[in-house]
């Protein structure tokens, strides 16, 4: 009897090798070097820090995050210590993650094109493995104006500004809250991005307490994440892959191995994990990685390369 091969989970994201496709999504847990190290030790294939911007921000008042059942809704409001302190945190995170073989993705935001260029330049001093431009936070519109992610030209302009000051692979995180996400994806790739992260939170949405009549989030509205948005994330990854064939971190509502496989069959290279940490904490990564490995083993696949984009090959016969 032939010896059964053990499948491997390694993936290559824009030239950066990941031990497995599971990426801690930005905004979840990535606030300190110690916590990012813990996530890596718990089986993440890459870790994204919480988005950092030019200046320190306290974010919105509480409530900022709610578990409403089929998912989360949040309006943390880009709380972050500002780029000066963030560079120090990221240097330390890098130092801790490197021996584990787990890449660090630095997520940045700003309220202007110039701001994006400056924060990107600064964050590269910490030598992250990749940089992700968060142009799609839906929770700061009152202060920042319309997110750059809603318009192809604005998204491209930010990417063009960040590209020359970024000596790392550059990802752009897209919003699902557009009518034509492929147009935005095309624009940022043409402007120099190496890959895409899709999707940021959906909405914004609102949850109202019916006893008091108050919207519960202090910001009144917030981005929707978790299983409720997964089918939308999968469809967007599918559309982006069909038209662009670039590396994508497929993110949105993934909570188990089955969801990871689905995202990769849609075309994702790696898969973001965010809201699912409320299920089992950082241990969610090793649990899901085990489930992915079990699937590959039981189906006779040697690696995720064999199933990437599989859904695109499956079409009804045309008569």
């Amino acid at each position, binding site marked *: 009897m032939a010896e059964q091969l053990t499948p491997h989970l390694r993936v290559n994201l824009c030239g950066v090798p990941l031990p497995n496709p599971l990426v801690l999504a930005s*905004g*979840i*847990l*990535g*606030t*300190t070097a*110690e*916590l990012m*190290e*813990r996530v890596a030790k718990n089986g993440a294939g890459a870790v994204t820090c*919480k988005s950092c911007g030019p200046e320190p921000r306290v*974010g919105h*008042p*509480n*409530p*900022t*995050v*709610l*578990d*409403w*059942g*089929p*998912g*989360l809704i*949040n309006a*943390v409001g880009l*709380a972050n210590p500002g780029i000066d302190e963030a560079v120090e945190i990221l240097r330390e995170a890098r130092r801790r993650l490197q021996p584990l073989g787990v890449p660090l993705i630095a997520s940045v935001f700003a309220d202007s094109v110039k701001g994006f260029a400056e924060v990107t330049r600064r964050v590269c001093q910490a030598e992250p493995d990749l940089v992700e431009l968060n142009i799609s936070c839906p929770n700061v519109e009152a202060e920042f104006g319309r997110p750059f992610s809603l318009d192809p030209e604005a998204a491209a302009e930010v990417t063009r500004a960040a590209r020359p000051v970024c000596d790392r692979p550059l990802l752009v995180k897209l919003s699902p809250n557009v009518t034509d996400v492929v147009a935005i994806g095309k624009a940022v790739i043409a402007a120099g991005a190496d890959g895409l992260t899709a999707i940021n939170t959906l909405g914004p949405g609102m*949850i109202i*307490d019916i*006893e*008091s009549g*108050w919207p*519960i989030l*202090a910001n009144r509205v917030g981005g929707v994440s*978790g*299983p409720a948005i997964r089918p939308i994330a999968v469809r967007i990854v599918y559309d982006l892959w069909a038209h662009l064939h670039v590396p994508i971190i497929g993110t949105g509502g993934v*909570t*188990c191995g089955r969801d990871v496989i689905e995202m990769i069959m849609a075309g994702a290279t790696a898969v973001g994990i*965010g*809201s699912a*940490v*409320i*299920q089992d*904490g950082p241990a969610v990564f090793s649990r899901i990685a085990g489930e992915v490995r079990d699937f590959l083993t039981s189906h006779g696949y040697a690696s995720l390369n064999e199933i990437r984009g599989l859904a695109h090959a499956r079409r009804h016969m045309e008569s």
Partner: protein
Amino acid sequence: MRDGTWNPELPIPMTIREVRQETPAVKRFVLDGSLNAYPGQFVMVWLPGIDEKPFSLMNANPVTLAIAEVGRFTRAMHLLDVGSRLWLRGPFGQGFSLEGRHLLLAAGGYGAAPLVFLARRAREDGRRITVLVAARSREHLLLVEEFRRLGCEVLTCTDDGSDGQPPRLAPLAVEELLQRAAPDALYACGPAGMLDALEALARKYHLSTQLSREAYMRCGIGVCGSCTCGDQLVCRDGPVFRIPG
């Protein structure tokens, strides 16, 4: 979404049934609801239009909170009276686990609330409890009578000696008690400096110890990363942290 099931953890309203001034800064709020919680766990209390903050439970049935007026949110809390409503999410976090026959509880300042809940549970199964209630001065000693009523041996200590005893900081008093009473386990809640000192004592005396820590908290459910203590999340891995004996 917890455990794959779609059970929302949205705030639920409860009505205040009783308010009692405990010390110049602290009021006790007894609510009309109950929660399936254990000592050391906390709830997120939401006042619509104001804010939402974490508080350890002083009792779960009925839900009871002891809240010190220290800022904008707690000032608003202190304006509430019998019949007012407030909203709760939770219970959240890892609470105390009971171990040993003779427990030493050290309550610093506002830290007495979760220890009252613990003392009640521990007395229910007949454990012996010694409590040290510490505060900066006599009028701030919190819930002393409550501990006595539960059958605990209660000692006090104050930073300024206004309780009639020599002025002492809580960790010193605890160290004396460790030597004199030789408890099986130490439980504490109070200011960070006091807890750090007690952690050092726990290691020095190889005493099984559980410390309830405070942190600036947002989500309460372990996603936002606001309440880190090293690589630990106070809301999810804590607020009670164990130091093995």
